[in-house]
């Protein structure tokens, strides 16, 4: 059943890619290829759910493909199936959405290319979680990377697309090479098959174990966007078409998480606690970095991209915690950590897909992507606004939406960890808890800022004033993840029940976590009953509304009061930059803001100011400290190498005896 579904999924994606290129009419190519992608996602969803329900696993091998590296080998287990599910739930709405979103590309070859690459991208992402040997994994991984890179640069008119593509390509290739090195090390000279690695990993000497973990963190961290390898993420996401951003943020980045889990929890034996601590610390740093930039960023999609960084950080907090607990032999807490990380992975996939799709609708409708240029869209794009509000509330992690449940579980996790482990470790966990709480708070700020500035109040520009609602198909596509946010928020046990199967398959027994509709954590004696909270909230709101309606006073609409100021205009509105200003001041050390004020004064006297220009920006210190030296070093090396090529034939000729001499010396030396 699941084999057939999976074969259908891959075939559909392949067919979609081909149809996009060959179908005679542009519109037909779009419809067919995206419908095919959507069908593929549905089939993948069926496959994933079948496997998760039945906890089955099956394998498929082909020696004919990629033969020199050991052939193609696929295996579905619950962990892989769960990530397949994530790809599917992100891919299906994204492909539906693109049906309406990319209509304007119908006449162009570029449109066909985007559809074809989209299908290839999906297929690559479907294969990654199923790969059971290094060859398959790396191949699918690179197909995914290449197709997503091409999608990022698919709209060269997008400002900064080329630079974003370059960052992305280089970072992802660096990750790939680190991954290759790690796998080669992990293979210990034997066959690069996952089962063999699983069997042999225990014999890996500690030193190379450390190197492997470092390389893996670099590899998967560069895909997932761990600090300081996140730099490509806020560049690439805005450049890509929105449905691709959704897919990248919702699914592709998560495959970095998948890889980490697959290798660190499945292939490798328990590691030293230091690694768990390091991953936890990385997670915290990532979450804080992401959320702080997300709060201050003016570009709509970059806000979301940084928020992805933040959520990846939270997921890695869970993973780091699980690693720690696994190192200490506390299987139940390790399992809980993993469940929390996986649940947040799913939740984030759902709400971030929704938000990126909504951002696409906004950019599509209002033709501007800067928060400073938006405003008042709630009246012009009412349905998108409602859907976006759902996503934003999930992002802010408030009940009863899905972002809240995983956040709540993360808190519980850290409390339980602090309670049930040895003091040396327990003292560190409160700091993590505080950081996660701060992240949650700042995420709420970011969410309010995103929705409040973009959708509420008055439009700040003409293009925002003339914004139009997204086509029905796009709204319908957004409805899917929005429903997902609500359902997963109300009934988290739906997902948690599947996850217990996933973690127990990884050899981590899980205590009872799911009972009906409420999440019960016997370990910390807490429970959460989101559906009841939702009912309470609903009842309270209805009562409050009724009370407000019963008042007999007249209701009229009038000019905004604004403390007596007349002629309310968009210029009086609070801007996105102003909204973030208090936080920028509080975290000056992090943002390192640069201010540049220029006065335009009347020639008569410097006291007659005609205009003031303020340019405020942040110093990109992470890039400056880490990447600028690297780039400079590469340039320097390149310059040095260029000195060989002076053009003088005498120098060139002199290399001949030179090489002869050096090699003779080496020959003498190694004799």
């Amino acid at each position, binding site marked *: 059943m699941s084999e057939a579904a999976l074969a259908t999924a891959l075939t559909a994606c392949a067919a979609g890619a081909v149809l996009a290129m060959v179908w005679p009419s542009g519109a037909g190519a779009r419809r067919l290829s995206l419908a095919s992608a959507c069908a593929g996602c549905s089939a993948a969803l069926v496959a994933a759910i079948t496997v998760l329900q039945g906890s089955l696993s099956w394998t498929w091998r082909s020696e004919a493909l990629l033969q020199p590296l050991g052939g193609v080998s696929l295996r579905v287990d619950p962990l892989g199936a769960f990530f397949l599910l994530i790809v599917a739930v992100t891919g299906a709405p994204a492909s539906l959405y693109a049906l309406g979103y990319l209509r304007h590309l119908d006449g162009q070859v570029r449109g066909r290319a985007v559809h074809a690459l989209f299908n290839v991208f999906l297929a690559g992402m479907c294969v990654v979680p199923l790969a059971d040997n290094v060859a398959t994994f790396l191949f699918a991984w690179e197909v995914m990377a290449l197709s997503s890179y091409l999608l990022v640069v698919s709209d060269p008119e997008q400002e900064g697309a080329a630079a974003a593509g370059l960052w992305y390509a280089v970072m992802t290739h660096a990750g790939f090479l680190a991954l290759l090195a790690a796998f080669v090390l992990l293979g210990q000279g034997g066959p690069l098959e996952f089962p063999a690695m699983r069997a042999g990993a225990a014999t890996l000497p500690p030193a190379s174990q450390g190197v492997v973990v470092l390389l893996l963190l670099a590899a998967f961290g560069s895909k997932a966007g761990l600090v300081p390898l996140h730099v490509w993420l806020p560049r690439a996401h805005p450049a890509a078409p929105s449905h691709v951003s959704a897919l990248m943020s919702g699914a592709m980045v998560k495959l970095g998480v998948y890889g980490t889990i697959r290798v660190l929890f499945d292939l490798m034996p328990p590691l030293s606690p230091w690694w768990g601590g390091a991953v936890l610390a990385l997670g915290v740093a990532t979450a804080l970095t992401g959320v702080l930039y997300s709060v201050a960023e003016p570009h709509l999609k970059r806000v979301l991209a940084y928020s992805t960084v933040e959520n990846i950080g939270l997921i890695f907090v869970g993973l780091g915690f699980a690693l720690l607990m696994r190192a200490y032999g506390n299987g139940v807490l390790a399992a809980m950590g993993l469940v929390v990380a996986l649940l947040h992975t799913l939740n984030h996939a759902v709400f971030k897909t929704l938000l990126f799709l909504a951002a696409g609708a906004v950019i599509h409708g209002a033709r501007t992507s800067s928060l400073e240029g938006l405003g008042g869209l709630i009246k012009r794009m009412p349905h998108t606004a409602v859907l976006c509000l759902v996503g934003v509330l999930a992002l802010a992690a408030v009940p009863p939406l899905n972002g809240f449940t995983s956040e709540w579980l993360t808190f519980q996790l850290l409390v339980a960890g*602090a309670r049930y482990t040895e003091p040396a470790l327990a003292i560190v966990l409160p700091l993590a808890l*505080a950081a996660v709480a701060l992240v949650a708070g700042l995420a709420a700020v970011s969410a*309010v800022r995103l929705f409040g500035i973009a959708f509420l109040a008055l439009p700040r520009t003409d293009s925002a004033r003339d914004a139009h609602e997204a086509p029905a198909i796009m709204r319908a596509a957004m409805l899917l993840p929005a429903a997902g946010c609500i359902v997963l928020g109300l009934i988290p046990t739906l997902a948690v029940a599947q996850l217990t199967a996933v973690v127990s398959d990884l050899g981590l027994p899980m205590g009872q976590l799911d009972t009906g509709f409420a999440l019960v954590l016997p370990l910390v004696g807490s429970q*959460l009953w989101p559906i009841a909270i939702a009912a309470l909230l609903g009842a*309270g709101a209805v009562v409050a509304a009724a009370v407000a309606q019963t008042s007999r006073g007249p209701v009229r609409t009038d000019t905004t009061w604004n403390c007596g100021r007349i002629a309310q205009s968009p210029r009086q509105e*609070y801007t996105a930059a102003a909204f973030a200003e208090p936080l920028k001041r509080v975290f000056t050390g992090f943002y390192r803001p640069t201010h540049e004020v220029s006065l335009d004064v009347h020639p008569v006297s410097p006291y007659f100011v005609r205009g003031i220009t303020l340019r405020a920006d942040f110093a990109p210190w992470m890039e400056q400290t880490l990447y600028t030296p690297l780039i400079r070093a590469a340039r320097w090396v390149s310059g040095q190498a260029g000195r060989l090529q002076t053009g003088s034939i005498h120098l060139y000729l002199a290399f001949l005896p030179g090489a002869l001499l050096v090699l003779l010396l080496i020959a003498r030396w190694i004799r």
Partner: protein
Amino acid sequence: MTPIVLAVTECLCLAIAAPAVVGYVRWLKARLQGRRGADFLQPYRDLRKTFAKGMIIADTTSWIFHLTPCVVVASTVAAAALVPVISASQPGDQLGDLFALMALLILGTIFLALGGLDPGTAFGGMGSSREMTVAALTEPTLAIAILSLALTAGSTSLGTITNTLLTTPANAIGPGHALALAAFLIAMLAETGRLPVDNPATHLELTMIHEAMILEYSGPYLALLEWAAALKLTLLLTLASNLFVPWGIATSLSAGALALGLAAVLAKLALLATLLAVLETRVAKLRLFRVPELLAVSFTLALLAATSSFFTR
């Protein structure tokens, strides 16, 4: 059945008592400042009057403006439902724990901020921005305070925390508990917009936080928001008293115990409200950009509390 009835009653009690707490604080402050002051029932009169008034809706607003008061009330009531007031055993624990309560309060704050942004006025935006900043910075303090409670009680569930403290009062002795209480109280000041973070009685728009957000509200909506703010203050004060000093709370459902519980909670509320009034008379409002310093102090206290609970474990 009885516990649910009791829970509803408790919630209603809080809801009804909330304006009185605010009125009491105002009265006491007036007395302390040498004014006569209105009596503690004045907020009820204000609410009645505002409810009866008509509403002017700013023409720049959207449905968010209408939704905000409802959600703020709903989230505050939901939070109140989680708080043990008279009885320690209560069904609110089924719904959620302290973290859920925190999240519910944040939900209210978010909608307040959205409501402030909706009319598009400068003051509204300013208030929203500041409110969200303060709320975000308060989160870690609250989380650590919750942690230090959870470490001694073994749970983040409110009922369990109260019960554990009642059964092992020794837990309350020591630096951890007091530090956590202090941290919690400071965080509470920030959460509820009291001095020195925000001045609830200010008339200067530039220094407002909470009031700036609700500038455009009038009539029943304003009444709902004012009442929700009062409820938030009351529920946090109740929370502080019943989590940190639970003695007197009813552990059985007998009438006597419940009466004693009611008396105890009223006394504790009065005490805390008095403290609040005294504090608000003594301190001046902090500049907005010094608020993080205050919160840092509170964070440090909470962290010390958490660590000290490791040592006493």
